[in-house]
């Protein structure tokens, strides 16, 4: 066991897998000698050689396209897209190719790649360093979508993703890289070291895809969230005084519908919290599922607390970010409804 922040845990996951499996290779913009703009691949080139961890041209479509070919060859490429906002040039390769190759070839070929990318706001990155595009990928059949919220999960989920024989979009809440940020931007952020989930085994372990985690059991209302918003939801539960059950989905595809249903059937209320814009975000799918599966148990409508339907505005970061105050208000409101 060691104490790791999320970056270190991700680094450890890649290092662990590179040591275990020679077919694991890591590449992307600035990930080689430099170790990535967020330092997630720091030291990997030195440890495993430039052939296992290297820089690429600035061409996200090329990075993913090459990874697909390499995956078809038999490698397990783990590629980094520097910011999730820059994944769109790779959208065609992800959607038309990575997601479809197993199916369209009737299993002849598969694409065991992981696309790691930092997402979300909170670093004053403006419109193009803050986006949360996870909802788009959940609509693409054939892609898995994974989002950790702690160092422990980050390593275990990344290892499961690397070992997965299908393409995984692995979204990293960049605001959580160095500490369990709960949305209270006006107070000093605690480092990961004070959080129990920063205890991370140095060796191999897995956290399975498709299993949600109940991070705070409660009776009154179910909060569905992932990534940064898990910590915001916890803070909101405290702030609101509502006995919320906070669920960290951990992977959106596959989705742990059982855990969700069991919780909502118990609480009778549900709030989805995400940072992405509201319309057609993954919150829509969750709300649609919950109202369908738990209709007769629901005492109030499923609410969504999300980013507004605008581009992430640079100077209004905290007016955009769905912080604990907004989530707490929604909790209280749900209880009154």
């Amino acid at each position, binding site marked *: 066991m060691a104490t790791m922040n999320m970056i270190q845990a991700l680094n450890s996951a890649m290092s662990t897998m590179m040591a275990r499996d020679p077919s694991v290779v890591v590449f992307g913009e600035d990930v080689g000698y430099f170790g990535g703009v967020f330092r997630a691949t720091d030291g990997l080139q030195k440890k495993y050689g430039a052939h296992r961890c290297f820089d690429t041209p600035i061409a996200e*479509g*090329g990075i993913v396209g090459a990874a*697909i070919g*390499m995956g*078809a*060859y038999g*490698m397990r490429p783990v590629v980094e897209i520097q910011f999730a906002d820059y994944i769109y040039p790779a959208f065609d390769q992800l959607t*038309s190719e990575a997601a479809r190759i197993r199916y*369209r070839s*009737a299993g002849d070929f598969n694409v065991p790649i992981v696309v790691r990318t930092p997402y979300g706001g909170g670093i004053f990155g403006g419109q193009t360093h803050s986006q949360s595009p996870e909802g788009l990928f959940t609509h693409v059949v054939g892609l898995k979508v994974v989002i950790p919220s702690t160092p422990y999960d980050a390593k275990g989920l990344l290892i499961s993703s690397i070992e997965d024989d299908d393409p995984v979009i692995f979204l990293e809440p960049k605001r959580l890289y160095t500490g369990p940020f709960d949305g209270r931007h006006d107070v000093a952020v605690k480092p990961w070291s004070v959080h129990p989930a920063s205890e991370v085994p140095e060796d191999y372990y897995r956290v399975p895809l498709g299993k949600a985690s109940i991070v705070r059991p409660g009776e009154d209302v179910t909060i569905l969230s992932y990534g940064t918003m898990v910590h915001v939801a916890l803070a909101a539960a405290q702030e609101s005084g509502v006995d919320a059950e906070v669920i960290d989905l951990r992977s959106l595809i596959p989705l742990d519908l059982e855990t969700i249903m069991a919780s909502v059937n118990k609480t009778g209320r549900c709030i989805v919290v995400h940072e992405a814009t509201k319309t057609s975000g993954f919150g829509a799918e969750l709300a649609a599922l919950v109202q369908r599966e738990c209709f007769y148990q629901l005492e109030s409508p499923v609410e969504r607390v999300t980013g507004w339907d605008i581009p992430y505005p640079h100077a209004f970061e905290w007016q955009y970010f769905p912080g604990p105050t907004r989530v707490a208000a929604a909790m209280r409101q749900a209880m009154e409804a």
Partner: protein
Amino acid sequence: MLHSTRLDRQAVALRPARNAPLTLRIPEPAARPGEPVNFSKLRLSAPGAVRRPALDAEPRAMHDLAYELIRVLDENGHAVGPWAPEISSATLIAGLRNMMLTRVFDERMYRAQRQGKCSFYVRSTGEEAVAVAQAAALESTDMLFGSYRSQGLLIARGYPLLKMMGQVYSNALDPLLGRQMPVMYSSREHNYFTISGNLGTQFIQAVGWAMGSALSGDTRIAASWIGDGTTAEGDFHYALTFASVYRAPVILNVVNNQWAISSFQGIAGGDEAPFAARAVGYGLPALRVDGNDFLAVYAATKWAAQRARSNHGATLIELFTYRAEAHSTSDDPSRYRPADEGAKWPLGDPIARLKQHLIARGEWSEQKHASLQEEVTAEVRNLQKEAEARGVHGNNHTASPKTMFEGVFKEPDPRLLKQRQEAGF
């Protein structure tokens, strides 16, 4: 004060000169329906005229080849010049047969589509040498990333025609379980990558595959094919960039058949520079080859393959040919090009030209040719009967519809188990 901001601005903001109005050039082909064909703008070289650089030649010293046209067969069917390959008659005859097989297969599947037995078909008529000669020049373990018009590769690799027909007819023999359109084949066994309906995506994938092979210290190389029109996609650029940067062992082929559905190659930029010349800017070597000349295609591909195998990296090959038939069964070329353009194509027909060469070589005759033609026709006809007995498109003789819920992921997807139940399968 010496320089006020106001003054600077004036110094910089030059008054617009009274220029003539700008105009935009919209490229047009040399001839449209009703007009006489016009090949005056084609860049051709004489057979045997183009030099053959050393396998390790610097790309910088090879720019001229992007503007020439490698041709081996002369008007009389003799192999001439430095590119004339050492190739056995057996290989040539096998190649001839595979081209003929491809053409017959195409014709019969085309007619099956017209009879409503399959939903769609794409012929490669006139371009058979591209696929068949290149397959002959590569090793069977090399990985091929083709296009929907690459059936000749698969046929040359001995993929069972019955399976191809199964897919064309979407019947019980379809190895892809009815999931793909006709012509979008896949065969891991034959190192033939699953064809995408999305143009161009395979080009960078082939580079990635080659990178994987090189990273693994393997000896296998990759090759990929796209059309002239598709060179405009981003994946083309990614492929050339990555292949250049990492010196990947891959052959990148542009099949310039002059047309992209209704758009002539000038709409992709082919009038401004040959597609082969695109390689120059990436520091990659380029070969521009008569795609209807089996020997030239074979020789150029061998050169590129050997170059890749000896760690000199990628080559871009432009295969200069002509799409002799419609784009697909959904297309009617008489609406946009002269009807006789194909027949008058100055570089002839690949099958006729190889036949002529084999006869000139003393290894072939009109008789043998006729009997081979009969043989392959019979082979395809018989297989077609067998295939049709297992069902044709639309008559529900395909795999069980419940299979359509399988194989999105490796593990069963709980959503799809539910949806399958809902569907009643």
